[in-house]
């Protein structure tokens, strides 16, 4: 296992380096010099030149990249020239919101997807299975912002049960926090359950044909026990990976959902930075999110190896 972790870790380093380089290049090579953005209307050639020099923008690209990376490795991601807040402060402030949203969304997706998958797998090919499978296919064609609009219309405009926008921290008002989180999490959960359902269902159908399930049946175990205890764990391998990969999609979805529901998370920080052309924040957030995503994938790989020993021995 240790050797496997080490192999994966050595792969992680070049990927992270390349991610940082790409983030840096996107921000540096594309038009829209930071100096012009900062100076805005008052940009004269002299002032721009002076500011470029102060900020080191007139240095060669490679030197700037190395300098930038050096700062980042020391935990200095830069400071917004608009709010004066450092990137890390801004992210730390908003991370809990996005985190809570993603966890609640994944929970909502699992709560809808897993039971449906188990019931479908138990009676695969039946009417209920066919109905759920085609609904899942249909749901995959519903973009997040569509289900958001639909949910807002139903629960906030028509029924007036839940607030459409706003946020209170969990520590201040747990119940109010969950009320504000309900619609955003449900929106993302709607996008999540079809994938969860499909993956678990097909793995479960395969597992149910295994000999040990036949043995469990022969022993006279209750069907529910067979499904939930014997079949669920060996069937959940792909689900773990998909859940991990979903984090990336969830982050993308969270950007939209946070904007729609006015949640002060990472997504809104990013969109706000784009609107105000706050390039330092933008660069820092993109790098942090991508790094988080890479590390998340690494963890998923590890989990996968724990669940299926064949992988860490290179047999799979």
């Amino acid at each position, binding site marked *: 296992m240790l050797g496997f972790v080490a192999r994966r870790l050595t*792969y992680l380093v070049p990927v992270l380096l390349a991610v940082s380089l790409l983030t840096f290049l*996107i921000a540096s090579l*594309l*038009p829209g010099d930071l100096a012009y953005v900062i100076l805005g209307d008052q940009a004269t050639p002299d002032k721009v030149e002076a500011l470029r020099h102060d900020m080191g923008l007139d240095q060669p690209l490679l030197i700037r990249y190395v300098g930038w990376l050096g700062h980042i490795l020391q935990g200095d991601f830069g400071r917004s020239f608009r709010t004066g807040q450092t990137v890390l402060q801004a992210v730390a402030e908003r991370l809990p919101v996005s985190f809570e949203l993603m966890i609640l969304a994944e929970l909502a997706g699992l709560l809808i997807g897993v039971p449906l998958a188990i019931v479908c797998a138990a009676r*695969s090919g039946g009417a209920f299975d066919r109905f759920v499978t085609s609904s899942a296919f249909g749901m995959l064609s519903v973009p997040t912002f569509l289900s958001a609009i639909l949910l807002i219309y139903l629960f906030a405009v028509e029924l007036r049960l839940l607030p459409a926008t706003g946020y209170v921290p969990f520590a201040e008002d747990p119940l109010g926090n969950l009320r504000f989180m309900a619609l955003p999490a449900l929106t993302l959960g709607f996008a999540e359950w079809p994938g969860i359902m499909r993956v678990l269902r097909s793995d479960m159908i395969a597992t149910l044909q295994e000999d040990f399930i036949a043995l469990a049946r022969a022993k006279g175990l209750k069907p529910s026990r067979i499904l939930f205890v014997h079949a669920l764990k060996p069937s959940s391998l*792909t689900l773990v990976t998909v859940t991990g990969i979903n984090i990336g999609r969830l982050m993308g979805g969270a*950007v939209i959902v946070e904007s729609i529901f006015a949640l002060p998370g990472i997504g809104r920080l990013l*969109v706000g930075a784009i609107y105000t052309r706050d390039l330092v924040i933008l660069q820092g957030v993109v790098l942090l999110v991508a790094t988080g995503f890479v590390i998340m994938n690494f963890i998923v790989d590890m989990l996968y190896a724990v669940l299926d020993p064949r992988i860490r021995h290179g047999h799979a």
Partner: protein
Amino acid sequence: MATLELAIEEDVAATPARRVRRLGPLFWVAFGWMVVVFAVALLADVLPLPSPTDMDMLERRAPISAEHWLGTDGLGRDELARLVYGARISLVVGLCAPMIGLGVGGALGMLAGYFRGRFETWVVGSMDVLLAFPPLILALAVTAYLGQSILNLTLILGVLGIPAFMRVARAATLTLARREFVIAAQALGATHLRILLRELLPNVLLPLAAFFLLGVALTIVAEGALSFLGLGVPPPISSWGSMIGEGRESLEAAPRLAFIPAIAMFLTVLSFNLVGDTLRALTDPRQGAL
């Protein structure tokens, strides 16, 4: 890196023959809708439609009438005309962006799958880097730097599609390159170029084409999401995404302003998914093995 592909084919594999037959009428309904959207988008200039950008402040949010078939939006612009011109944007971006993915990703995937070795490692590695960025966030960041325009939007969404096309092409090439007809061609002394273009390409193209349709669906959604946030196509050009975004402001007064483009988008995305999935099921070699 978790490189497991999000396979959609499991349930197809479970019941191969029946599924294709069952999708029959649905497939043609979806195909019919695609044809309608294409025709309307192509003929937008010829159709007797009011201008999609002319505002009429006296006729704001006018209900459905003989003059305005789907009413008018919050600025008094004809909703039907905006819908039709919006279809144009969705289709232009939705078709052009996956073309980039198809061309670049397909070529890279074929080369990687055929030549293997260090080149393959580099290609797969760089795709992993591209995949490290949550797609929508990278798209947002790049449009922020490049500025909003249909061209930039198409370019970035196209680049984001490259890894997926690369994987499909590489996977198909890997299995095909070991087949007898390729070995026979090599034995006959065919050049690499000839093998790639004459032997492999026709066989790789089929799964790529099916995947292309799924890519179109994904791109339409991504374009919609960016436009919905106001970071996609610049106003006053209408796009389904921006129409839904504008309609959100008047959910209480006129919910149809959000729901009409939403339904159009849903049906279009669903059609591309259905047709693409059916074609993919037909061309998937794994299905025959089961």
